[in-house]
């Protein structure tokens, strides 16, 4: 019911005349005083109801005195928000329900992992029993169906493995590791990009070019590279050394569809890189270091898992940044770089911690 635009279209006399600077105590005898809220503030988070399964942040609504402006646009903007505040509570109360975009805009965190969340995300639905990989037998709760039976994945097993993977991601990011999130199926792009940006890692949502790690000099030789210190500030002086250098290999790879990316996982195994992957009932669980038995065909399940891992990476990065401010940072990584040939001040060489960071772009060939 489009109340708001109707009122705007048919004139503003439907509401009491709005004068800036006057509180609306007269309009509501029984309700709390409505104050005009700043529209620029981040108000994405809704107050969690009793049945909310994720801890949601409530931002403080600051009270601001509305400014009387000569500009008509500014006054219209203010009036729109005043109207929204007045009429917002009218109508039925819509209780909290599943909104698909929230998994991308506000993903759950590792402490929100519950069996109910995993079941609602259809993560227990496996493939047909005739297509299974027998090594997954202990992750399977049972078989359901008479004509076309499918395997049902055990939710407690999924939850345990997912929590373990979250700990790994947060630990690796806390120590300055680079995490690569890979998800090449249709619809996984946004989840992958979100997770990578939260964990400050790299993402890939198109085909993995075989040899990107083993033949990195060739495939990623021309991509941009930079050296940063423990405070994430770029350090100059290494440009000529970086020209010939291959791209930095990731320290952890999270793969949302291992069945299509077995080449990537094999390259990681060859280069001793630990991997995390969503292992469905037809996937070989030995392909990844940390399997997460779940449904890789359900986009909701993949978004939950990617979101949770991204949040874990975010927490790790926050811890690392806090440590860097205090002076507690991980040891320098060995990338084979020589210190630049410049006259350095005493002690600055010791303070610097080199960490190579590159942008692994999938499109470069």
């Amino acid at each position, binding site marked *: 019911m489009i109340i708001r635009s109707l009122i705007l279209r048919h004139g503003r006399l439907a509401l009491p005349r709005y004068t800036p600077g006057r509180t609306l105590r007269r309009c509501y005898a029984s309700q709390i005083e409505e104050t005009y809220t700043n529209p620029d503030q981040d108000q994405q988070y809704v107050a969690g109801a009793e049945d909310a399964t994720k801890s949601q942040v409530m931002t403080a609504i600051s009270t601001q005195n509305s400014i009387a402006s000569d500009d008509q646009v500014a006054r219209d903007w203010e009036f729109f928000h005043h109207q929204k505040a007045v009429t917002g509570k009218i109508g039925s109360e819509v209780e909290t*329900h599943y909104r698909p975009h929230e998994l991308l805009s506000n993903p759950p965190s590792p402490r929100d992992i519950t069996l*109910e969340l995993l079941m609602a995300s259809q993560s227990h639905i496996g493939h047909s029993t005739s297509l299974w990989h027998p090594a997954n037998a202990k992750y399977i709760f049972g*078989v359901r169906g008479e004509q076309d039976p499918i395997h049902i994945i055990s939710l407690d097993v999924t939850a345990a493995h997912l929590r373990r993977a979250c700990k790994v991601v947060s630990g690796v990011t806390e120590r300055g590791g680079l995490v690569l999130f890979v998800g090449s199926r249709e619809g996984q792009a946004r989840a992958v990009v979100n997770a990578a940006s939260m964990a400050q890692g790299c993402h890939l949502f198109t085909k993995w070019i075989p040899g990107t790690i083993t033949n990195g000099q060739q495939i990623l030789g021309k991509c941009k590279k930079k050296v940063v210190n423990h405070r994430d500030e770029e350090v100059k002086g290494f440009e000529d050394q970086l020209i010939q250098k291959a791209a930095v290999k990731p320290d952890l790879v999270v793969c949302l569809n291992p069945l299509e990316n077995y080449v990537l996982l094999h390259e990681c195994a060859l280069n*001793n890189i*630990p991997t995390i992957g969503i292992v469905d009932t037809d996937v070989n669980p*030995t392909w990844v270091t940390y399997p997460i038995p779940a449904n890789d065909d359900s986009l909701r399940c993949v978004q939950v898992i990617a979101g949770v891992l991204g949040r874990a990476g975010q927490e790790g990065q926050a811890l690392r940044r806090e440590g860097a401010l205090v002076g507690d940072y991980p040891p320098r990584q060995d990338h084979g770089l020589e210190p630049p040939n410049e006259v350095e001040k005493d002690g600055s060489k010791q303070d610097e911690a080199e960490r190579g960071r590159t942008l692994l772009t999938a499109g470069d060939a």
Partner: protein
Amino acid sequence: MGRYDLAPQRVHTYATALLATKRLTTPPPWYDTITSIPPAERLTRPPLQRNQRSGGKKASRLFKPLRLQYEEDRLRWEYFNDHPWELARPRVVLENDGKDAEKWDWSVPLDHALRRPRSGGESEEGVKTDEEWDRIRRSQSRRPINGEAVIQRQSALQRTGVPRSTAYDIARHELYRLRHSQETEVRVAREEALATGAFFGPGPNEIGMKLEDKQYENWRRWAEKEIAGIKQLQGSAYTGQEAEAGAAGGDGSPEGRAEVEVVSQSVPGKRGGQEAKGGAGVHV
């Protein structure tokens, strides 16, 4: 093991060996984390079946996943055998937070919406029945009422001691009442709309008939071409010298010979080759 590459599981061991032999100077960033969080065990097959009677089935079945069976499965089998078209009704399986099933109270009848008590009434204990009905409606109105609801209602009744067939009859009759009222509402609404000037587009049956007609026309055109092709092949069997044509002429009738003459001018075997006639040209 033969086909399994366990290198992903041995990531930590390999890194430790590299560090020990000084191939690596500093441990990689993931080293400490993976030391404290080792990967899970792989490739083990614990027994999954429930306790078997000793000396019973063969051992290999013990390691296969369990076949899940519930009492409601038998009720579902009976219900959907009696009402096969219920399977054609779409069912929404989307969950909000995974706790949706806990909200529904199946001791409340399925046609509770139709059983509003007289307003102002009171039960024996002094409870206001109309307010009670309102209160129940507020939480239970979102229940999905479908075949699955019948089974759940039947289970709830059986748990209170009602025998199975009686519970089944009670539950399904509640569903019939509700469906009947819903269908009546829809029919009345349609009649009201038509009476007040609304018009409806073609219904699914009409659209289906139109699509079938279109496919039939496609088939008819294809069939005509096929018939033409077959006739051409049949006709080509009788061409060649006139004597041959006369002797081996299939019909022997004047029409048959006329057909043959028409076709004999354009057969692949002749020196002129076959001229393109399409399908219709061969028709006499």
